[in-house]
């Protein structure tokens, strides 16, 4: 150490170690978090809505779908605010939550921050919420605590169980639990058998499946191949019309796959990059949600950006049911 005193050596060494550590920490953790997460707290919408303003008949339904909106942060509040404003122009009586409704803590603790505050106006207007469980909705998968957390979440939202069906106007909805125990764990076969039976018994004109993990995605997590292999034959056999998912934080719509259109709508509060695959019809890494109008055998879907512009829209015709 010629030329350096002991103190200089310590201070310079400390600085060098600090610089190396900061390089590793910043590149590996801090910048990706600042870039991807929605950490800044946000304020909830102040709009008041006319209750029960929507029209649902056996032939007609308008509903919204939003995924991965559970930060309670600035971006989540902005998306919720846009959803609320959209209700004003085209009221809907149902919001399908596509999972991950609570980041940075469990849902019971964060209920007000991630759900009650951002959705206040819609809740007060009487809009119903139906949840497809996401992987962040229980941090401790496979454990009793994880299951308790899911149960608490479902209770708070008034959801009947981890997987269930509901009917609104001309559509039957099938909400699946695509979490690791739900898809592959012990007892997962029960869910697939239930889905097969329930789809077979469905008499509605439209069959819409909602689950958190996308069967087709060109985003960060990508397609959930193992779930696709188990699920797609069932969906194709029962001529499902539309499959909604979240998990990847972007919007993506596929060309029909075996007659089924798959949509990823995971831009509820944060975004990650999305590429394009052979199955991609439209894709964008944006904060967004879906508004879907069904009238008779026609379904019109709009992907609404947080700034109110429409990023993508498409029309489906109901498939002939067997």
């Amino acid at each position: 150490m010629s030329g350096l005193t002991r103190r200089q050596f310590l201070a310079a060494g400390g600085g060098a170690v600090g610089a190396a550590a900061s390089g590793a920490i910043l590149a590996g953790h801090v910048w990706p978090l600042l870039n991807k997460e929605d950490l800044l707290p946000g304020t909830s919408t102040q709009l008041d809505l006319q209750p029960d303003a929507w029209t649902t008949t056996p032939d007609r339904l308008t509903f919204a779908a939003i995924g991965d909106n559970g930060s309670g942060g600035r971006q989540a509040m902005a998306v919720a605010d846009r959803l609320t404003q959209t209700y004003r122009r085209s009221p809907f009586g149902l919001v399908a939550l596509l999972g991950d409704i609570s980041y940075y803590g469990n849902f019971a603790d964060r209920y007000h921050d991630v759900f009650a505050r951002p959705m206040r106006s819609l809740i007060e207007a009487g809009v119903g919420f139906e949840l497809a469980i996401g992987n962040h909705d229980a941090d401790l998968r496979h454990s009793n605590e994880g299951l308790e957390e899911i149960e608490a979440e479902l209770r708070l939202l008034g959801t009947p169980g981890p997987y269930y069906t509901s009917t609104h106007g001309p559509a039957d909805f099938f909400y699946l639990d695509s979490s690791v125990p739900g898809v592959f764990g012990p007892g997962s076969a029960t869910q697939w058998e239930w889905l097969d039976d329930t789809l077979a018994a469905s008499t509605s004109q439209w069959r819409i499946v909602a689950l958190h993990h996308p069967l087709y995605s060109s985003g960060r997590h990508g397609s959930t191949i193992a779930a696709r292999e188990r699920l797609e034959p069932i969906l194709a056999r029962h001529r499902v019309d539309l499959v909604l998912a979240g998990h990847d934080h972007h919007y993506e719509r596929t060309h029909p796959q075996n007659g089924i259109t798959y949509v990823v709508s995971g831009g509820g509060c944060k975004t990650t990059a999305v590429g394009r695959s052979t199955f991609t019809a439209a894709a964008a890494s944006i904060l967004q949600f879906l508004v879907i109008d069904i009238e008779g055998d026609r379904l019109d879907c709009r992907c609404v950006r947080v700034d109110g512009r429409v990023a993508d829209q498409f029309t489906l015709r109901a498939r002939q049911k067997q």
Partner: protein
Amino acid sequence: MRRATVDRIAPPVYGVIDLLVILAPAVTVKFASDRGGLGDTNGVDLLLASMVIGGLHATIASSRLHSEERIALRRADMWIAAADALVVLTLAASILPIVVLWGFADEHASMANGGYPVVALWTGITLVAVILAECTGRVVFWWLEPHPRTRRRTANRTR
């Protein structure tokens, strides 16, 4: 390069680096919200707050280096202290927001909904990072520089 030239160029360059380090987290957050489509005005408040604090601290850091250039008995002390301050600033300005915002998400959400402006929180976090860095720079320089007693001891030993 001649010493006089280095003395003239180093403080403003150091100030600019200091400003960029302070601005970086706010710029990242702004890019993230722009990418998501939130619009031009979102995130500008944080950027402005960081710009004001960064501008002020860049001036302070630059004049600190300039004054140390004049009083330093060993120029290496000045460079080491300046580098340490920059490392602390980089770490603190980036990690503190994550720790504070992620670690206390519930508390901040309640405060924000109670009307507490987020920009005040951001300003507070950035100020803490700046103070930590400034203290590091000054303390390390003071610690490294020979003081009268040390100088006497060194002189005795030499005799």
